[in-house]
């Protein structure tokens, strides 16, 4: 399972690219260059390839969320669990950004479950238009 949560922060002394690539390198023994190539490919989908060499402290909340989502998606046959996303990106009015972020990488995970407080339920009712 790939967890996206404030309780599982990014590793602060690794840059974005290595934070995400680490999962593939460790579990699939993928070479660093190959793992980073995959990471850049996914970061491009968010238009965030420029943050590949940045560390956690320099990221915006939205960038951090996408990076954590990508890291979770790197788990083989990933079942992604997102824990209270509005706590990670507090300035969101509704879940549009979260749905878009998931849609951008929907080929990289099998399931996704979002866990949040019941009083935030309305924020998840987003129309397609």
């Amino acid at each position, binding site marked *: 399972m790939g967890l996206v949560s404030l309780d599982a922060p990014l590793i602060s002394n690794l840059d974005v690219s290595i934070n995400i690539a680490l999962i593939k390198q460790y*579990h699939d023994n993928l*070479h660093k260059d190959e793992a980073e190539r995959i990471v850049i490919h996914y970061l491009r989908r968010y238009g965030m390839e420029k943050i590949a060499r940045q560390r956690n402290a320099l990221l915006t909340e939205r960038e951090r969320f996408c990076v954590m989502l990508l890291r979770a998606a790197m788990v083989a046959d990933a079942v992604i669990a997102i824990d209270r996303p509005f706590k990670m990106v507090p300035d969101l009015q509704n879940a549009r950004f979260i749905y878009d972020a998931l849609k951008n990488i929907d080929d990289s995970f099998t399931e996704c479950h979002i866990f949040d407080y019941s009083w935030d339920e309305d924020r998840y009712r987003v129309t397609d238009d």
Partner: protein
Amino acid sequence: MIWAVERIGTSSLVVLKSFQDTLSFAITTFLRMFRRETYNSAMRMVLVHQIYFTAVQILPLFTIISIIFGSLFIGIVFQVIKNLGLVEYLGRILMGFVVAELSPFITVLLIALRSSSAINAEIAVMKVNNELRTLEVFNIDVVNYLFLPRIINGVISVVMLSSLFSVLALTSGLLFSMLIFGMSLDVYTNALLNSANFYDIFISIIKCCTFGFFITLIPIRFGLHASNELTSIPVAVLNGMVKVFIAIILIEVLSLILRFI
């Protein structure tokens, strides 16, 4: 009186428990070194980075210190040898003193000052920030991914830098031997080679490996003692570094006992 005895007993038990825990942690990590699956791509990358930070970045400073300390010590040793009329023991003294004792000791002090403290703080910060938990969540073994690369790097770096120190010190010894004794390169080299004792070199390498192992293992162990508060980081670093220096002294004493029994 009973109160004092109880206090001494409690303190002794705490020290013994800490020693036992460190040894148990050392055995666990040591055994992991010989497992093939430990060396995956992520671990190898961390190992290369660690060697760069510990053994390569320090090279300019280390070279200057080696030349200054090496020349100073060799100069003093040569002057004493000359005054006491012990020129025939020159090679033996250089190999026994510089290669077997001085090089590992100066090297381990420099690496402990620079890298052990960094490792201690790094692990403590990771503990405070919940980053160790992140690794667990993603099923990444912290011993394999975080600890072993640092420990193996410690062993490799101390052995390599200690060898470099010996080479630089012995090279400056060549200059002093020319200046003080008027000795040629051939005579100096022969004196060193004839005095090279396999047992001394073996003990020296084992000592460097032991130094490297413990000056990285102890900071890791004490870094893990940090709680969830930022204020626990300096306490963890302080405790770890004190134990590192105790370990250095203990290993030095043990190696001396081993060499001279």
